[in-house]
């Protein structure tokens, strides 16, 4: 079992979920490189990033704009491909998976929380949260039970039949968190999850993410500029010019 990559820790790790040994690696990134090509111009986004994420860990990824945070999230979330390097999810090398297999893995094991919430506007809150389970072919009674439990956990059970446009920003982000966690993923990728929220709402959303992550055993990889978020994370790593700060 490998230890997580040394990093700048700003907060003590909270209690890890039951059933998972502390420090068990969910995500392991080794030597990740990614370069964007804009015509004849090449823009290196990641230059050899090594990072581990433990089970139930809430890891904040900070850094200035253009430092490579979103690129790292995209590679870890299997929505983009690295030019070089190795990605392991729950011990399995996934960097070279075909499109269909990567899609299946995202469906089963990775949740996403976006800055702009990205809820489907024509679906109700209940349908949005239910969608990942529906895709996975979970039986309807089981889906109803899990969705109801998740909506209750995020305090939105009274809004199950509402459409997203009838909710506040904080409520929408709670729906997005419920959607990310309802399938009990190993990993949740969150890109600036509090950037569109006011201060009080952002803090409540952060507490919810932390609480839900620990309760459901999901590891969070969160990119953020938000100092409030950083103070609530188990560990913080900083990216600068495509490299982890402090790394060689």
């Amino acid at each position, binding site marked *: 079992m490998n230890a997580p990559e040394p990093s700048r820790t700003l907060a003590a790790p909270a209690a890890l979920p039951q059933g998972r040994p502390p420090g068990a690696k969910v995500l392991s990134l080794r030597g990740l490189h990614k370069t964007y090509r804009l015509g004849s111009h090449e823009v290196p986004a990641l230059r050899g990033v090594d990072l581990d994420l433990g089970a139930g860990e809430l890891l904040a990824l900070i850094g200035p704009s253009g430092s490579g945070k979103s690129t790292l999230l995209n590679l870890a979330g299997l*929505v983009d491909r690295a030019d070089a390097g190795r990605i392991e999810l729950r011990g399995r090398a996934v960097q070279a998976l075909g499109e269909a297999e990567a899609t299946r893995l995202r469906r089963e094991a990775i949740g996403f929380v*976006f800055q702009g919430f990205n809820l489907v506007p024509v*679906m109700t809150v209940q349908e949005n949260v239910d969608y990942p389970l529906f895709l996975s072919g979970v039986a309807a009674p089981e889906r109803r039970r899990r969705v109801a439990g998740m909506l209750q956990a995020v305090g939105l059970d009274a809004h199950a039949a509402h459409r997203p446009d009838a909710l506040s920003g904080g409520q929408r982000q709670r729906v997005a968190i419920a959607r990310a966690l309802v399938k009990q993923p190993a990993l949740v990728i969150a890109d600036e999850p509090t950037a569109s929220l006011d201060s009080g709402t952002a803090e409540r959303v952060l507490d919810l993410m932390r609480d839900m992550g620990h309760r459901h055993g999901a590891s969070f990889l969160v990119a953020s500029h938000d100092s409030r978020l950083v103070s609530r994370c188990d560990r913080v790593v900083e990216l600068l010019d495509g490299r982890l700060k402090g790394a060689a």
Partner: protein
Amino acid sequence: MNRFEGPLRWLKFAWLNTLRNRRRSAVTVTIAALGTAAIVLAGGFALYTYESLAQASARATGHLVIARPGQFSGDEETPLQHGLEGADALRRQLLADAEVRHVLPRIEFQGLVSNGDKSTIMMAVGIDPDAEFAIKGPFLTLHAGRMPTSGERGRVALGQGLARTLRAAPGSGLTLLATTADGALNAIDVSVAAVVGTGIPEIDQRLVYTDLATAGQLLASTRLSSLGVFLSSMAATAGARERLAPALPGLEVRSWLDQAPFYRSVRELYNRIFGALGLVIGVIVVFTVANAMAMSIVERTREVGTLRALGTLPAQLVRSFALEGLVLGGLGALAGALLALSTSLGLLLFPVQMPPPPGRSDGYPLQVAIDPALYGATLVAIVLLSMLASAGAARRTVGRPIVDALAHT
């Protein structure tokens, strides 16, 4: 998950997506409806025309025409050179077939018709008047007098144009002149019983119907030109021909279709015209649906990226957009079919008379056939085209890298 839940959920998703931009969806549905209605109405009009022409052709000659081969080729040196002998036995043989309803004898000949002051060419047909006029039904119009009956001798029905040329009216006396089967010239006096119209001026200018006995007397022959066989239905024609032809050695059996070059020409022309029309309408529907869907899909690029990130397969998304095409095309096709159906029924309740077509003297009621196969094929075609157009428009966006789709603004 039960087997219907998945498809129903995708269908509901597609339905809700079509309601996002109601004006655009309404325009798309309207164009699909108008396209469907245009195809069904044009096709129904063509089918009605084909059916009417086929009925007219079959009633003019019989579903089957039986004669000696030389009669069809028209290369006789004297009248009835290739005529049928012993027609009564042949009639009995034909009437024994279960599909045969009537067997009508005909003697066709040319000659002159004179009113004493003026002579002109005639194209005459000796017939059994009662049966022949009953079968012609609405395809022969009585303009004056009364139709001659089978018991009368020396009574004729004249085409309207010929009656006008000879200044003849019911009760007028005329003389028919023709060459006999032996090649001699013969004449016979007749009286006009009726003035009739076929709707084709060129035929009405020469047409004379007389009874078989008068025709036989004029031509000095007991032969017939042909036997017209009338069946229980148009659909029985091919089968009856296959059954009867082998049992009639030395005779040729032709169908009404072989004897109807006008029908074949019209059908070929209409097939091309309405085929091209259908193609143009199909292209318009495809482009309209594809354009509407392309706009809708581009607006939802970020959502496509989100759904892909959540684990939706590209094929599932393409199918989902195809279902939106199914909803739009299906609603349009149904509305168009209802519009076409109500128009067809409206034309039955409130007839619209069309002017005479070229080469005809009579107008005709505008009617549109209500053909379930035409409706079904058009609905299926419009729905499939809409689905294909939607899927085609979706493929590019769905195939974009997820990160690009998520970054779309």
